[in-house]
């Protein structure tokens, strides 16, 4: 209370100063400081006036870096330890893995071709020359099978690596010769090649205990230059430099793009800001369909939600198409299954449940639940999440469902979800690649902490289908049984200065376009 009195007092003091036109009397010391500052400013102004614009040689595009602002800077550039999205995205540019994915998410050779010798042996043969670059690390050393072996051995031996569990199935890995690596597994694993997406590090530097986290050395299309404030990378092909800096606030990122302080933004903007940018001169907005899957999860330990008719009622009560059209970024799509239709294990034949509140109400009556049905929906405190939850709440109201929203901080929220303490929750799966997700999220053996079957869904029919790897049947069954209500795949987008070209967007939101982006028109120098 004292504080408020003080501020209001200050406010009136200032007000009276403005009214009387006199200047604020500063204490002596502050006064001299301000005089000094004025003198300094004056000097600066004078020198600025005296200096003539020198005839500088025209800068080539390679000398002018392309500046990208991101919501969250990378944390760790060691591909063996990094798990956050930004680090993973930068590491894809700095390092090359053995295997990558094509547009249908099938594993394809990146550094190496493979054959399955038998159920537990895989032989990888390094390609003589990978697309665009020689098979060499950025420090000039050639990349050989021994580097692959060293990378995977260090991964398996690292106690602190969050990825070591993924590779626990590897019995041993050996270099047959300079170009061939043999993996021996403990258990047969048909999806094994799809796991080898970790970037390859130079063996000599691994042995020397090099700090890859801050000074990465890989064999990717971009080379690490420096990391002081902004992360600076250089493209091997044409020495084009790229600067990545962190700007947390979305409004500030947009303002920086408009003012020419950055050249490129990707993702992490509310749809309204993106629409605002679309209408601005000198800015180009590019969008593409996304693959990150948002859904509504049900708890099968809850007696009401166990009833299929109640889940169907909720599915009919949500107008996903309207949300996608009005409240999401361009490029967003209504989802029918966990994996998008273009995925090789996706199912394009699944239509979303039609929006029909009357039918929803009829289904609830049939199920014999008291109306309005009270349900609690848990979500994080993220503003866009709460906003979407509020839309769901409003849409479900005419369907006879009174949704109570509990927005919890991320830690509490995620812990509750893992513990099964919820009725409904909303989350998004990011970066899904293999149909392994169906086992992870729906198999009755995958209840946390062993997997991510957070709704405690147990269906022997589905378990059988998953074991048989019959993905069309699995997706069909999930669509009918509704352990998740699929909502949408959020679109991917980038906003950039109009001079930038050849930036491609991927459905998973990776920044691979930085390997091809070009500067056709150099940014205009500030007019003054």
């Amino acid at each position, binding site marked *: *209370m004292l*504080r*408020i*009195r003080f501020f*209001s007092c200050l406010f009136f003091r200032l007000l009276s100063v403005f009214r009387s036109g006199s200047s604020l009397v500063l204490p002596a010391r502050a006064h001299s400081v301000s005089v000094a500052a004025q003198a300094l400013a004056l000097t600066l102004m004078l020198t600025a006036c005296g200096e003539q614009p020198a005839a500088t040689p025209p800068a080539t595009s390679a000398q002018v870096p392309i500046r990208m602002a991101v919501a969250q800077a990378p944390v760790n550039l060691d591909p063996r330890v990094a798990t956050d999205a930004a680090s993973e995205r930068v590491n894809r540019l700095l390092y090359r893995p053995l295997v990558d994915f094509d547009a249908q998410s099938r594993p394809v050779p990146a550094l190496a071709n493979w054959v399955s010798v038998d159920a537990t042996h895989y032989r990888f043969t390094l390609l003589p020359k990978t697309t665009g670059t020689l098979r060499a690390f950025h420090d000039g050393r050639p990349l050989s099978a021994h580097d692959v072996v060293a990378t995977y051995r260090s991964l398996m031996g690292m106690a602190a690596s969050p990825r070591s569990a993924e590779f626990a199935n590897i019995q041993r890995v050996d270099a047959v010769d300079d170009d061939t690596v043999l993996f021996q597994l403990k258990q047969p694993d048909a999806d094994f090649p799809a796991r080898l997406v970790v970037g390859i590090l130079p063996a000599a530097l691994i042995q020397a205990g090099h700090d890859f986290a801050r000074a990465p050395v890989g064999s990717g299309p971009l080379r690490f230059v420096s990391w002081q404030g902004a992360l600076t990378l250089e493209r091997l092909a044409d020495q084009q430099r790229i600067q990545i800096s962190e700007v947390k606030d*979305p*409004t500030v990122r*947009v*303002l920086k793009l408009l003012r020419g302080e950055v050249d490129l933004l990707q993702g992490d903007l*509310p749809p*309204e*800001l993106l*629409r*605002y940018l679309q209408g601005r001169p000198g800015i180009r907005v590019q969008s593409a369909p996304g693959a990150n899957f948002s859904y509504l999860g049900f708890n099968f330990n809850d007696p009401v939600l166990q009833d299929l008719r109640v889940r169907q009622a909720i599915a009919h009560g949500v107008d996903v198409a*309207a*949300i996608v*059209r*009005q*409240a999401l970024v361009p490029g967003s799509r209504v989802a029918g299954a966990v994996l998008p239709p273009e995925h090789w294990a996706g199912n394009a034949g699944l239509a979303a449940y039609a929006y029909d509140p009357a039918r929803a109400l009829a289904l609830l009556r049939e199920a014999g639940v008291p109306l309005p049905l009270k349900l609690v929906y848990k979500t994080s*405190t993220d*503003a866009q999440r*709460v*906003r979407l*939850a*509020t*839309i769901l*709440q*409003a849409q479900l109201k005419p369907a006879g469902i009174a949704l*109570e*929203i*509990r*927005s*919890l901080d991320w830690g509490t929220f995620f812990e509750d979800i893992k513990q099964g303490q919820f009725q409904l929750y909303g989350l998004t799966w990011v970066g899904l690649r293999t149909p392994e997700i169906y086992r992870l999220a729906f198999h009755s053996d995958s209840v946390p902490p062993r997997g991510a079957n957070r709704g405690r869904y147990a269906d022997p029919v589905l378990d059988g289908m998953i074991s048989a790897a019959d993905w069309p049947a699995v997706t069909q069954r999930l669509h009918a049984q509704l352990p998740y209500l699929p909502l949408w795949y959020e679109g991917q987008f980038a906003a950039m200065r109009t001079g930038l070209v050849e930036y491609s967007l991927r459905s998973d939101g990776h920044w691979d376009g930085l390997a091809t982006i070009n500067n056709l028109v150099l940014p205009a120098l500030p007019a003054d």
Partner: protein
Amino acid sequence: MKHWSGYVLLFWLLAALLGLLLSVSGLALPGFAQADQIDLSRLLALPDSSAWLGRDDLGRDILSRLLEGASVALSVALVVTSITLLFGTLLGLLAGYYGGWLDRLLMQVTDVFLAFPGILLAIAFAAVLGPGLLNLVMALCLTSWVGYARLTRVQALSLRQRQHVQAAESLGASVPRILLRHILPLLAAPLLVEATYGIAGLVIAEASLSFLGLGIQAPHASWGSMLRDGVRYLLVAPHYVLAVGFSLMSLVLAVNVLGDRLRDALDVRRSD
């Protein structure tokens, strides 16, 4: 009270009453949408005849939400002020009148509460108790009684030495009678002024906690949560955050100015 601050306060009191009426009855202002009625086709629409202050990020009428927010802000402030005024004054009276170990104990407790920044303590309480309006009221109550207890105790310490109190004591008046009839009336003026400032502080505190997501939950409106949402769209729809910001400022300023004037009016030295 022919001063602008009085009219502003009166305006917001009426607005809050109207907002409370609307949210309890579930009705809407004639010609306007309800405070929680979503319209996805008019997200962040500019002011027009169907929504005088425009629409928010879910297409809801900002004016109706401002009214609802006013009722939340003022009812939280008034409820918390009444509870803490009662509780704080009582503790302060007991400590000041009796003195001794009771005084030392109570003042040490208040010192502990004073040592914490109030809003931080409220955040901690709201985080432990979970978000929600009732928990918000409890958190604010726990932090804002201290000022009244301190003020009352100091005044009571000096008032009990006054001759009329000593006269009452020698006449055999009971303690409650002395406290309520001989000490409290002399305390009323400073307490009233303190309470006025307290209300302004609580309006800000409620908005701050709601801004952080610890206050009233969606879809109900609070000025703090509206500000938080509005800030995200500052570039696209400045009308949203301006409407809320101006409301909050006018109410707090009016209450503060009113408190200032009240203090001047009640000051014995000045009114002489």
